[in-house]
């Protein structure tokens, strides 16, 4: 009340002026409000049309970038994807695609910088780590590449993560093989194979990589696994034949190579490939013809041992005749032969299994030492040398 009493008393004219002032202010505020509403709708229309247009532009440039990338024109793709990104800056896949295009265009430094920045926002993204691994591999940073591959394997993948991880693992294996890190490659392959479904294509791929990683035993295992599927794939037969041959399992190799040659698709293979498998089969056949198998009759076995003895002695004699100074290994070998009876008859051999074994050991030793001292053998010597590498494996199933 005290405050009210302090207010100056207005004359009727002043009161009228005050009312006019209030009315004028109210009208002014109302008109401001109306202007704000009108301006809002104008701005909204402008903004909406612009937003729609931006989306259209982003899609249009993305499509152009995609097609350019697939057409092997990474530079065009970079420009298009950059344009798309300007209209859809938050599109993560677009960013990754742009970085891929940069990498494809050979702009490795820019691509690495871009991927690193992307990685900071999504450190667990499998695709980004994979791309960085590829770039590191391209730059020759072996350790970094393997590290990125490993992070990519542990990272997150959209949708088909299971399949993508296996693909990344196989890519890592290929890289490890290229780096001659066979041990690591074999470990990764066994993990990949262990997680893979029962699919012949995957088994063939794994077996192929195991073969490159110099693991013929597992190679043969996975090719044989693939052979259990129908229809039998030529690649599986060929691979299994090769693996059995590499493992000196010539009996098995012969069977597999025969099946290979009889496969309907074999004739579609290039001539040199066909010749390669035919030669392998021929070799396996001959090896089995030379090998004194325990499955043979005693006589037949003794005949083969005597034949092998003759071949080895001739090889040693030929090797010694070519030398002016005889190396100690050859001297020792010659001494061992001299300790054996000069002539051996079939009945003698048939009665003495220990002699058989001693002779065959000496044959294998002769082929190995002469190969070292006098160069690679040919003909039956070469086949005997192959038997010498793993004689117990020849007839393994």
């Amino acid at each position: 009340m005290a405050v009210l009493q302090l207010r100056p008393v207005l004359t009727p004219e002043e009161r009228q002026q005050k009312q006019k002032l209030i009315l004028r202010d109210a009208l002014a505020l109302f008109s401001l409000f109306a202007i704000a509403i009108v301006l809002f709708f104008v701005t909204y229309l402008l903004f909406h049309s612009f937003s729609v247009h931006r989306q259209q532009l982003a899609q249009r440039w993305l499509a152009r970038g995609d097609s350019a990338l697939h057409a092997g024109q990474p530079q065009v793709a970079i420009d298009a994807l950059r344009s798309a990104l300007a209209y859809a800056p938050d599109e993560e896949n677009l960013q990754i695609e742009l970085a891929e295009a940069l990498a494809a265009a050979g702009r490795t430094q820019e691509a690495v910088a871009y991927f690193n920045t992307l990685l900071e926002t999504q450190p667990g993204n499998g695709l980004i780590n994979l791309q960085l691994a590829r770039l590191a591999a391209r730059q020759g940073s072996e350790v970094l590449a393997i590290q990125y591959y490993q992070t990519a394997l542990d990272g997150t993948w959209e949708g088909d993560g299971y399949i993508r991880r296996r693909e990344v693992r196989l890519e890592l294996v290929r890289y490890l093989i290229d780096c001659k890190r066979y041990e690591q490659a074999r470990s990764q392959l066994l993990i990949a194979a262990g997680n893979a479904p029962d699919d012949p294509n995957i088994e063939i791929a794994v077996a192929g990589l195991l073969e490159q990683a110099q693991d013929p035993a597992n190679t043969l295992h996975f090719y044989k696994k693939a052979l259990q599927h129908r229809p039998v794939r030529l690649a599986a037969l060929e691979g299994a034949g090769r693996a059995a041959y590499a493992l000196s399992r010539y009996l098995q190799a012969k069977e597999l190579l025969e099946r290979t040659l009889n496969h309907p698709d074999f004739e579609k293979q290039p001539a040199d490939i066909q010749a390669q498998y035919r030669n392998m089969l021929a070799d396996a056949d001959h090896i089995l013809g030379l090998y004194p198998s325990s499955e043979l009759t005693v006589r037949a076995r003794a005949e083969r041992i005597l034949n092998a003895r003759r071949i080895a002695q001739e090889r040693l004699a030929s090797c010694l005749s070519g030398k002016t100074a005889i190396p100690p290994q050859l001297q020792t070998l010659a001494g061992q032969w001299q300790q054996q009876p000069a002539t051996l008859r079939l009945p003698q051999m048939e009665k003495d299994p220990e002699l058989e074994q001693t002779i065959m050991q000496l044959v294998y030793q002769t082929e190995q030492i002469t190969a070292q001292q006098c160069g690679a053998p040919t003909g039956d010597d070469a086949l005997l040398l192959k038997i010498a590498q793993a004689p117990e494996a020849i007839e393994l199933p």
Partner: protein
Amino acid sequence: MSAPSIQEAVKRVTARVVRREEPPLDMDKIAPTRDERLFLVLSIFIGVLSGLLVVSFRIAIEWIKILTLGSAPHAGQFRLLLVPALAGLFVAALVQLFFPGARGSGVNQTKAALYIYNGYISFKTVIGKFITSALAIGCGHSLGPEDPSLQIGAGVASIVARRLNLSKQRLRLFAPIGAAAGLAAAFNAPISAILFVIEEVIGNWSAAVLGSIVLSAISSVVVARWFWGSEPMFRIPSVTLRDPRELIAYAVLGIVGGFSALVFSKALGYLRPRLRALPHWTHYFQSGVAGLLVGLIGFLGLPQVMGPGYEVIDQAMHGQFAWKLLIALALLKILATTLSFSSGTPGGMFAPTLFIGAMLGGSVGSFEKLFFPHLTGSVGSYALVGMGVLFAGFLRAPLTSVFMVLEVSGNYSIILPVILANMIAYLLSRGLQPTPIFEIFTHQDGLVLPSMEEEREESELHLEDALRAVDVPLIKGSESIAEAAQAISVVQASALLIHLWDGSWYAMRAEELTSIGATLTPDTPLERALPAERAPILFPDLPLDSALPYFPRWPLVPVMNRASKGTLEGIVTLEDVLRRYQRL
């Protein structure tokens, strides 16, 4: 602001004042609180209207860009040469013939409106700024929309305030309110806008206007975010500082930024007055030629330097460019912006400054990544800090630069590198180029506006600066007139200081003592002879001018200790105060 626009403004202000005087309304009597109440309500309206206009302005720029330069301008397109050149010619004609007030960035024009034209910015200037800036920026001139947005906001505020016939004092205050709204909407960063207006336009934290600035800035940002979303202007990558050694790299960035700011401001300071001094008819062609040259840079391989370049800043922040390209972009942007701005093309320098800073920061970051890969800082964080660095070094708004980076990134962990790099750039730039760029422009335009940087650094004088020891007789109130007369005659003082029983003080002139001695007996205690009033009690930390009102009445003013009641620190006389001021 050019001569015709000044005349126009003066005419309008005069006309408005005449109109206001027509109805003899005694506002203080009939509506004493009207202005105050309307002030806050209008701040919100100004914020909303400015926000809407700035959003429209930005969309207009984007539409013009797409329609003229295409959706993806790239090197080798002849339109990159033609469009900015033709747009420059058209814009120059508009500015020369219709919108002379639209020339320049908008910051100095807003300051001029505040300090010279009583907050007056014409509707024509607002429209002109909108159209000419949108055309120039959209057609590829190397300029930004923030400063024009600031002027558009200030113009909206001025128009609204005039329509409501607010007092002249209030009218003047609306320009910075609108400026904050315009800038906040353009930046999508209210705190930076408020700070910038305080740092660069008003110059001080005035309580009278701060609340309204905040209200309008927030209103405009709410509107802008309704359209653009609440995301910051740039997509900010994750920012971390794990290794303190990285601060060395940020310090290097500060040094690079400081020198770059110097190069940029020297280039502008050199070219702009020379182009302005050319015959008037050349002003119709300068923007066109500048557009052609900027277009040539784009045509020959780097179209990124055209326009404000936000998307390029974004790309740099996400490591899409190698460090050599980033350096090339920074240097060419300095050249392009110098050409565009010096030619008088309407448009701002905020965006180019951010662009150059981001490119420099990105290049330092990429360089670090390349040669010191064990350090963890991302290219994005360097680009982000780089923006603040050039803002601090070139625009000389250190506080705004720090908060802008924090606000734009939304990440407090970058505070250390930001402060370090920004301060280095600021101090280096200030040391090498004492006059800030906005002040250089005002001098070139023949105006004398207050320098906010100087005002910030002015050291205010305090009473302690003029304080002197008590060299006049100090008498107790219980002592007699005779004792006082004896004390004053011994030292030949012109005044004495009397300490009364209640702790108060009285400063007495010698003449006054003589006159009371003539009317009272000599043994009368002084306290009985004194009038009721007492000398004011001041403290050493008070402003020096706070003593001035007391000297007509008192020969001297006692200065007391704040901590120890009744302890006299010294005295101050009018001569002491004046002498201290004269020593400045």
